[in-house]
């Protein structure tokens, strides 16, 4: 069977589909790159999907009360 030439309609549709495909692929790459950058620059994070790791969660520093150290008497007197 003899193949007929491609109609202009097919060319238009092909250009639309190709353009959309490339755009979506570029969008995926961009979102991936953005995710890598955001995570790379982010603060330490804790995922709660599985086992909780309390040591991975940054806790606010709690100021410890100053405990006066008792004076230790020395053998040498004043």
């Amino acid at each position, binding site marked *: 069977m003899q193949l007929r030439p*491609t109609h202009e309609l*097919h060319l*238009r549709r092909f250009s*639309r589909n190709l*353009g959309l495909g490339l755009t979506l692929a570029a969008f995926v790459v*961009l979102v991936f790159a953005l995710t890598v950058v955001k995570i790379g620059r982010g603060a330490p994070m804790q995922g709660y999907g599985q086992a909780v790791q309390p040591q991975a969660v940054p806790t606010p520093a709690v100021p410890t009360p100053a405990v006066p150290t008792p004076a230790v008497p020395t053998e040498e007197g004043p």
Partner: protein
Amino acid sequence: MSDIGAYQGATPTPQDAGFGDYVELLKPRVMSLVVFTALVGLLVAPSGLHPVEIFAALLFIALGAGAAGALNMWWDADIDAVMARTARRPVPSGRLAAGDALAIGLALSGISIVMLGLAANLAAAALLAFTIFFYAVVYSMWLKRATPQNIVIGGAAGAFPPVIGWVAATGSVSLEALLMFALIFMWTPPHFWALALFMKDDYHTAGVPMLTVTHGRRATRLHVLVYTLLLVPVALGAALTALGGPFTLAVSVALNLWFVAGAVRIWRRDEAAAAADRNAAEKAFFRFSLLYLFLHFAAFLVEATLRSFGLGGW
């Protein structure tokens, strides 16, 4: 390939638009100005954004501008069809259905706003949403057909991109961002009125109340001069802030002298002189106005680059 025969000789319907038609729907020429001014806003702002974040923010600002352009083409298809300058756009020429333009405009608006919020910050995303609303609703649907001041107020839509860029980089608005806004805002009226001076028939046919149609060409020439004079202190003021430096000021002084001279030339001409040389002065002023804005923002960028090397700036 078995169905080709049914299409032989068929004329393309709106559903057969090519990818280029969709790109054209986003007004790529307008987008180029948006991209450039937003890029300057992003780069001159004091921030430590990663290049990928800058690229993403720029892309989604541009996409938002394109979405606003698509919504504008959907709404204005009727008047675009009767103006020679716009009759070949995808919707009025029949290559794309008006409903498709609306769908694309709305979808791209949503995508660009959400993605800018994720790539940069929520303030920038909110500003982009407001800009799209301002251009599509306030300018296109309301002002454009209602008042000869359409260009003056509607110019705000085109002035937002560098502010969005700045906010994407810093998270807040500052004097420098507002001055970049004011520069484009004040530049827009003389730019478009110069265009209207040699496109008068277009707007008249479409019934768009441009100043040339409602107040005549003499009044438009005066308005070009007045708004150009009002633009000068804004441009020089921007060059005197942290945006500028000696280099920017020198560029700005030269550009403003040239621009004012062009506006005076337009103001002094009568219609006989304009008709004699086919609006040569008006066309030259319009072309130079594009260069004027481009070089101002390029100077901001150069100044910021010089500053990073310990040169430039005040």
